[in-house]
């Protein structure tokens, strides 16, 4: 096989300049390699409280991510994984609660609110059962308030009809970052926060040299 290009359609962009996906050389006869970027992925979180009737949910659809993806018969190899979400895009459905979240969780001692970032050098995701589905554990670093700590995420990648879909989940402990559990009028969240992310990149023009990136 010769050179393959992967291009992905763009929805709307939140940032000036969409991430670009470049055509790349195949490393082997059985593998496609591409730098894939996503600029409107979804990340959500859920945290329990000391009140059984209440769990706090939050969500952002401004997750950006990029990684080099090699797909072959045995699965996917991901390299140079980087993902980021602007803290101001995270919403819980209640403005005051959002303010508290930014203030008590994400603001540094200097008063800055850096993006939440995840990075990992490499992950191998072997196909599991299905020819189009691969599951793996991705080990990397998650930065909150600009402080990086080790973080492990379970990732499932599905490729179907030209789309690569990735969904992942993991658990963050606030105490790992030295963050106190937020408390408001007797309601206190737990230390563990469940994270979940969803990304989709579409291959719309297999022969195109340059394409832009899509996310759903």
């Amino acid at each position, binding site marked *: 096989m010769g050179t393959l290009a992967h291009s992905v359609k763009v929805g709307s962009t939140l940032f000036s300049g969409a991430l670009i996906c470049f055509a790349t050389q195949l490393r082997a006869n059985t593998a496609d390699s591409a730098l894939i970027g996503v600029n409107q992925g979804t990340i959500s979180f859920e945290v329990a409280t000391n*009140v*059984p009737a*209440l*769990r706090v*949910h939050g969500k952002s659809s401004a997750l950006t991510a990029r990684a080099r993806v090699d797909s072959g018969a045995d699965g996917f190899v991901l390299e140079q994984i980087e993902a980021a979400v602007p803290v101001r895009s995270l919403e819980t459905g209640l*403005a*005051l609660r959002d303010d508290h979240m930014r203030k008590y969780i994400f603001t540094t001692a200097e008063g800055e609110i850096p993006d939440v970032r995840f990075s990992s050098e490499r992950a191998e995701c072997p196909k599991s059962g299905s020819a189009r589905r691969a599951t793996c554990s991705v080990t990397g670093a998650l930065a909150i308030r600009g402080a990086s700590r080790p973080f492990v995420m379970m990732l499932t990648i599905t490729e179907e009809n030209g789309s690569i879909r990735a969904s992942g989940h993991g658990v963050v402990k606030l105490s790992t970052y030295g963050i106190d559990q937020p408390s408001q*009028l*007797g309601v206190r969240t737990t230390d563990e926060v469940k994270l979940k992310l969803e990304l989709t990149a579409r291959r719309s023009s297999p022969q195109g040299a340059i394409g832009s990136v899509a996310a759903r």
Partner: protein
Amino acid sequence: MIRLGYTNCAACHVAPQGGGLLNDYGRGIDQAQSLRGGEYEPADDGLFRSISANGRIRQDLRFVMQQQTRWNGQAASTAMRGRVLYRAVAALSSNLRFAGTVTGENESAARPSLSYEPPATPSHVFVNTALLHYRAGNALEIAVGRDQLPAGINIPDLGVFIKSRNRLGYYDAPAQIKAVWAGDRFQVMPFVYGSAGNEIRGERERGAGSLAEFDVLGNHRTVLGATIQHSSAGNGDRRLTGGYARVGFGKWGILAEHDITNRFRGTTSQAFRQDASYAQVFWAARDWLVTSATGERLRVDAPFREHLTAGKVEIATRFTSHATLTLGTRVEHNAATGRIATSLAVQFALKTVD
């Protein structure tokens, strides 16, 4: 509140059944969901300490003014209703409290007067709630006294078919013993009850029932529940079976309920069935601005045949935690007569917050 991840009322209300006074956290959420917003600071001055018996009595005064104009195709009528509610909860010990609500009003709002279901007798001064609560543990509470019976989606509008046709009106406060058993993903509310004392002769019911609801997806946003109730009175019996759902999606959500009431009236020696349905889609454009669209349906079999459908659009604006303005319009179609009745309602509610 299901849109924000609250599966039941216990997080914000003093009474786990919901309605009535808010706890401190509930007051914080109440204020956060107002146009003024900001943080709720519990009162802690000398005046507050003396009227609250050093914090043991939680109370408020609520004033509701409603003007409703109704057209039925032939004539128009306007009603101006004012209602004042005093609500109080007194902590008697660490696990025992008394809750009471007394309402005064200028004009009554009784349930529809039906030959098979006469309304409870209204009163200008009415004790809606007088309950002694015993907290047996974090997950279990038992209450004895008089109150409205537990209901599925538990909306405050008592004029909807699922309420007004199932003895859940303003003046229905039967004597009862009820329990609330709640876990992370479930809530069960069994109850037994007897007469409230304001029913007409032959309509004094006694019965038992239960609500049971479950957070089916475990995400605190998808609650499905079921209701059963078996009641008997001198003039007849009724058996209610219902299902309901509260589903939230962040800014919007769905409330739905369908109740089947199998009735038997001794006067006609005939059994008949009543179906009441309710579905509401709401959208919180802002924390303080909530719009909703509601559809309702009522079908009653012969010999009391009725077939009503209704639609309602409402917008509620919470200016502060003290003041809320609600505008709504409702259209009701009676399939038996072909008549369409339209109403427009404006409601302004004020309450004290300590």
